């Protein structure tokens, strides 16, 4: 399966048609082996593809993503469908009456929506273990987790079945699965990309962003979502490596890669990382609890067992604690902004190692076995807390389980991340590796 720009080029040049591209993808999705897809939107996809082909036939420009198929995490509004956020509670909810804003932008750019994708219920988890739709599997090893909560979006792109997909990131839900499945995933500057028409989780941290297999595709999709071009960065970015907690609970190869990318860059210790992560936990739990309080009062057992206890606990937190955590956050953001003001990109691991096994979904943190669904975001959560943009990039290691890094920028500094990632990709340090034969392609027709 080719990438987004290659597909658009084929369609725009007439070498292929949007309808042909979509039929090829629909056939592939029918037998996808990752349990990544929750709904195939064949009718809508064929309609949108036909519109792209008609536009081309009449000499109109269908947009930079002409005929490019894509999927969205199951929390984006899709006109005419219930927005379920991965929950059986909302399976029969009133259908959305319009597309989410970013889906509208992609449609206007010629992209074709073909599927909704699996996630942890209400995005509360880092594992994509879902009571209704099952667990999403990692294309590099079907016995392992894809990560979450946007695991369906990551797996379907990593497995080569779709060129790009959208996910959401509240504490690491794009970067963790991108890291575990070996693709690129962007959490933008907080609220830099529109979240209108998405099912919220914790509004203080919610963001949406794209997954792709290479930087050119990711940049092309980001430009459509943003509605603007990335600033042209010619100067070498000023790099720093995050130290302290960001150099613990990681694979040695992640640290070696960071040190190889920026051997002379200073090691910056962010103060109070553990405090920041605790504040993020409290804000997330409180806001999630408030959001679902009514449904929890009405039908607590209708929630996914993996999620309901956490949401119930959050619903019992005092508002004063949330205020306290937010006050700490405001001061913390200011302190860190001043501390890292002289750097364009900070380097850190994205997830604490390779994907955990589905049968043993635990991660060792400080030598203790902890639930993967709660702790895979140990390195992403403090960055979300700061509202900074962070691009998860895959270390290039064909034939081995993926490991990812975070390139973290200043607020609004995505362009520097893209420029550095493009350079590292050109140098062969990062890049998507095709999942091993016999694992990834079992059901793929491409």
């Amino acid at each position, binding site marked *: 399966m080719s990438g987004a720009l290659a597909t658009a080029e084929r369609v725009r040049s007439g070498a292929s048609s949007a309808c042909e591209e979509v039929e090829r993808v629909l056939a592939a999705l029918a037998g996808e082996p990752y349990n990544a897809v929750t709904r195939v939107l064949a009718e809508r996809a064929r309609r949108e593809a036909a519109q792209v082909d008609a536009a081309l036939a009449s000499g109109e420009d269908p947009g930079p993503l002409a005929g490019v198929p894509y999927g969205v995490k199951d929390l984006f509004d899709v006109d005419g469908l219930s927005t379920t956020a991965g929950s059986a509670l909302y399976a029969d909810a009133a259908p959305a009456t319009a597309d989410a804003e970013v889906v509208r932008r992609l449609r206007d750019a010629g992209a074709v929506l073909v599927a909704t994708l699996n996630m942890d219920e209400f995005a509360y988890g880092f594992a994509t273990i879902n009571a209704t739709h099952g667990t999403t599997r990692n294309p590099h090893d079907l016995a392992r987790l894809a990560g979450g909560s946007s695991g369906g979006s990551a797996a379907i792109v990593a497995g080569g079945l779709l060129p790009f997909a959208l996910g959401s990131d509240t504490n690491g839900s794009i970067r963790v699965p991108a890291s575990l499945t070996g693709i690129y995933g962007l959490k933008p500057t907080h609220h830099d990309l529109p979240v209108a028409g998405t099912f919220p989780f914790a509004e203080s941290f919610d963001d949406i962003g794209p997954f792709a297999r290479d930087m050119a595709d990711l940049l092309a999709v980001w430009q459509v979502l943003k509605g603007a071009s990335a600033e042209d960065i010619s100067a070498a970015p000023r790099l720093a490596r995050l130290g302290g907690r960001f150099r613990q609970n990681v694979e040695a190869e992640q640290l070696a890669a960071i040190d190889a990318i920026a051997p002379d860059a200073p090691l910056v210790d962010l*103060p109070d990382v553990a405090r920041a992560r605790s504040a993020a936990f409290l804000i997330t739990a409180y806001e999630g609890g408030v959001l679902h309080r009514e449904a929890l009062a009405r039908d607590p057992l209708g929630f996914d067992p993996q999620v309901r206890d956490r949401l119930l606990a959050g619903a019992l937190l005092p508002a004063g604690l949330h205020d306290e955590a937010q006050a700490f956050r405001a001061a913390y953001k*200011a302190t860190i902004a001043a501390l890292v003001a*002289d750097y364009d990109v900070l380097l850190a691991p994205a997830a604490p190692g390779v994907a955990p096994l589905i049968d043993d979904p635990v991660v060792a943190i400080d030598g203790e076995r902890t639930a993967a669904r709660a702790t895979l975001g140990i390195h992403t959560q403090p960055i979300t807390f700061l509202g900074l943009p962070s691009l998860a990039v895959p270390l290039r290691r064909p034939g081995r389980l993926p490991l990812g890094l975070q390139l973290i920028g200043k607020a609004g500094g995505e362009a520097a991340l893209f420029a550095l990632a493009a350079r590292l990709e050109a140098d062969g340090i990062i890049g998507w590796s095709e999942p091993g034969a016999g694992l990834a392609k079992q059901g793929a027709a491409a």
Partner: protein
Amino acid sequence: MRRPSFIPSIDPFLLCLIAVVTAASLLPVRGAAASAFDVLADLAIMLLFFLHGAKLSREAIVQGIGNWRLHALVLASTYMLFPATGLAVDAVAARWLNPLLISGVLFLTLLPSTVQSSIAFTAMARGNVAAAVCSASLSNLLGIVLTPLLVGLFIETRGSGHGFDWGAVRGIVAQLLLPFLAGHLLRPLIGAWVARNKQILMPVDRGSILLVVYSAFSAAVVNGIWKVLNLSDLAALLVLSAAILAVIMLANFAAARMAKLSREDTIVLLFCGSKKSLVSGVPMAGALFAPAQVGMVVLPLMIFHQLQLFVCAWLAARYARDPIAEPAAARAAVPVGEAQIAAVAKDRGLTIPAECERGVAANLALLADHAGRLRG
């Protein structure tokens, strides 16, 4: 964990300043050498402002600039409350203190806030650093225009005839503003280099101040400063400086309470709103006053500057370790234990199903741990 280094209780720079004043008193530079020193001091100041222009990051300013209420309070303190206090001191002390020293006291109240130490103290006290960067930078930039205007307004109108010349404003523009703008405009070319070599700023900062002070004090000594000044004058200056600082800090603290500022923003107002910049003040005095008067005019500023460093270092250290300054009213407990959980759940219209009780209790225990960690 990295924190801004604690500012030592005895600032080594104070010792350098004392040494330079002593040197100028014993070996004042005269004649052609004095002129050469003046030119050297002017060039050092131009280089200083050029480098500050290249160093100033627009991003930090943009990040903090939204906090307009705080910035308004800081600017009001710097350019309204301070001058009003200076005028009051002028009215009270004019009868018994050397007129040039009184001008110096009034002059110091018209100066912008410091940038580096305001931010360092704010960071040390765990205040809102981005807002401090913004407030202090804004105050400093506005001071380039406002201070000469206020000096013209107040020092001239009080009729002391100290030789203020509006042409001096042009001197300020040429010596301070133009190098600053040149540095800032060249930031795309040299900003990265300056950022990488920040260590060059401190010697330029301090070296240029020492040069100006030496040059100014030499002129003052040649004109007989130590013949007209005595220990009682110095003691009076110390008392006046302490009184001004106390009035300003108490007023700012009251203003923060009235405006219901957060703890972090209160710290910014206290530190940015109560400080006066030696770095800006000395060259401005050089540009605004006759050379023979500069030594006397900057003497109150030097004393006030050291006093504010001592007081703010003490206050920042107290804020840094004082947990009472945290929003105590907002402290709220995570319910733990069967009875507490059931009571809070009932209060919120929730029923905890039997199969969820253990899980909810475990999650609340985890959240209680997080609350404990958040509170340090």
